[in-house]
């Protein structure tokens, strides 16, 4: 067996030794600086200030807020909205992704879906909320229904508009990973379509599906501009109450309570992302 030697012998390149070689970790500085400034530092401030009162002294009294049924209501509201929009988004997105994947891999339809999904997954905020207000409502172009004005149904529908395309984007690679030979093998062994999905395709895709669902969950949890543009007369979810705690002009602002609510969201996201990481590891084991 010939092994091609890759080590060069002879004279070192002319620039060798002229400049000091940078330590290996130097290349990671931009990344860690970025993460440090925009993630770790703000998170640290939120955690520390959640344990302080508005005068800057240490205080644990903010935590009595967590026992307040209203505050629990904001977290329950966030949970409802995230569950509804992520589950519905995941199911419809997965079906759409499967339809796209079963088409011509180089076809115009697939390229169109991926391009459109990439754009719509980022469509949110005031423009999205207003687009729906024009479509649905007392003078809506489509219809006027009372459920649309009830939390979380109306806003859940609006969130679906960016959740479904996001699901298509993140779930399509998993479906593409299904090898056609597996399907052929199970059919050769006499499996029906249902049996194939029940015992082969489903278990293979399930970790990726759950992982993508958790990603949608976190995506919905942190969304603020869309729901605030849709309705601003009552705080249904935690980010809205954080805004009220920070900028109430009727004397109810308390930045430290906002920090505490943000800390609660950090913990929620940490739980969700831990689950996501565990499921991703499992998905990798199947497809290795």
């Amino acid at each position: 067996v010939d092994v091609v030697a890759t080590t060069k012998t002879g004279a070192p390149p002319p620039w060798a030794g002229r400049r000091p070689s940078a330590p290996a970790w130097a290349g990671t500085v931009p990344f860690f600086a970025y993460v440090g400034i925009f993630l770790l530092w703000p998170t640290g401030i939120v955690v520390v200030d959640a344990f302080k009162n508005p005068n800057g002294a240490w205080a644990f009294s903010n935590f009595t807020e967590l026992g307040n049924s209203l505050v629990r209501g904001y977290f329950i509201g966030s949970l409802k909205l995230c569950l509804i929009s992520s589950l519905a988004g995941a199911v419809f997105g997965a079906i759409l992704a499967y339809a796209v994947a079963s088409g011509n891999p180089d076809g115009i339809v697939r390229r169109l879906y991926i391009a459109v999904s990439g754009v719509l997954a980022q469509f949110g905020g005031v423009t999205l909320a207003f687009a729906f207000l024009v479509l649905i409502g007392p003078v809506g172009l489509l219809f006027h229904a009372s459920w649309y004005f009830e939390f979380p149904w109306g806003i859940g529908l609006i969130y679906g508009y960016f959740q479904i395309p996001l699901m298509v984007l993140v779930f399509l690679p998993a479906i593409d990973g299904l090898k056609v030979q597996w399907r052929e093998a199970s059919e050769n062994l006499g499996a029906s379509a249902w049996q194939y999905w029940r015992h082969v395709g489903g278990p293979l895709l399930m970790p990726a599906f759950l992982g993508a669902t958790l990603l949608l969950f976190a995506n919905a949890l942190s969304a603020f501009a869309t729901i605030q543009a849709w309705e601003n007369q009552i705080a249904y979810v935690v980010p809205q109450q954080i805004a009220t705690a920070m900028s109430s002009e009727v004397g109810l602002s308390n930045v430290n309570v906002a920090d505490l609510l943000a800390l609660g969201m950090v913990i929620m996201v940490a739980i969700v992302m831990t689950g996501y990481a565990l499921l991703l590891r499992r998905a990798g084991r199947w497809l290795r």
Partner: protein
Amino acid sequence: VRSPYKFALAGVAVLTVLAAGCSSSSSSSTPTSTSSGSAVNWATETTAAGGGGMNALVAAAKKEGTLNVIALPPTWANYGAIISTFEKQYGITVNSANPTGTSQDEVNAVKTENGTARAPDVLDIGMAVALANTNLFAPYEVSTWHDIPGAQKEPTGLWYQDYGGYMAVGYSSKFGTITSLSQLLGPQFKNAVALNGNPTAANAALNGVMMANLAEGGSPNNIADGVNFFAKLKQAGNFSPISATGATIKAGTTLVVFNWDYLNLPSYVGVPNWKVFVPSGAVLGGYYAQAINKQAPHPAAARLWEEFLYSQSGTGGQNLWLQGGARPVEQQAMTVNGTINSSAASRLPTISGTPVFLTHTQATDAATYLAANWAKAVG
């Protein structure tokens, strides 16, 4: 001092250098001197006369060249015209930050941007926020100080009310003519009735609930009847949580909104089939207040801005507010001395009955009650 976070240090150093480079290029926050050469620190002057008169103030403000304002929507009380008139008259650039912000956002910006050239110079804030933050303000008395009624200013000039109006119900004329709030409980108002914001956060929304409270026979001391009215609206399916803005009114989504009359007039809303009414026995007034940031980066421009806002001339702030449908604080004095724009004054909605103005205690009691009960009533 926060303990350093190791990962952030390198990046912080870089950012600090960048930020210092940016701010020093736009900074002009040094004490100014008059053209006559004697140094005047406008940051501590409490009248224009004390600093050498209006001409000295104008010269110093022009030298600063910039004024930072915050939370002034161009369509609110004619602020678009007020800012452009000021810029034209004095050749001073007005930086308008966060136009849709709340009064509390203004105070937060004063604190977080303290010491930078971006910090707000002047504030236009609700009374609850003004009274809670007087330690951030510089006392100043405008030239027309004596025309501001005594109850509407802090005696040393830390804050002074600027313009106000009355709570009114604006509605689409497709509903015919509305004369009482109980009509709003009817089935034709399905998902139609909105406030201008969340009453635990926005002053205009709190006053909207208070107006309903007065119309329902409640006292200004207890907002419970107002909250109950909105609970009834919610039960009838008539409450609309959809954000009410000029755009949603134009789009036809918002059909009925409780708001200050100067934000609810057909001329402001820009919709021809829009009507306004004030329920009988529920005349609720409210004024905003001006204040100067004690650490204003442009102290002379800040004081010139206040002189401009309280000027009684035809193109001064008082008449410009009036043209925007708001009632300037010096309206009474200007009506007497003849400087008022009488055609603009005649376009204001007529108010019958004795207006109620919430005291600080009444406003904070209402906010406390809303914090505990609003979400339960309409959630």
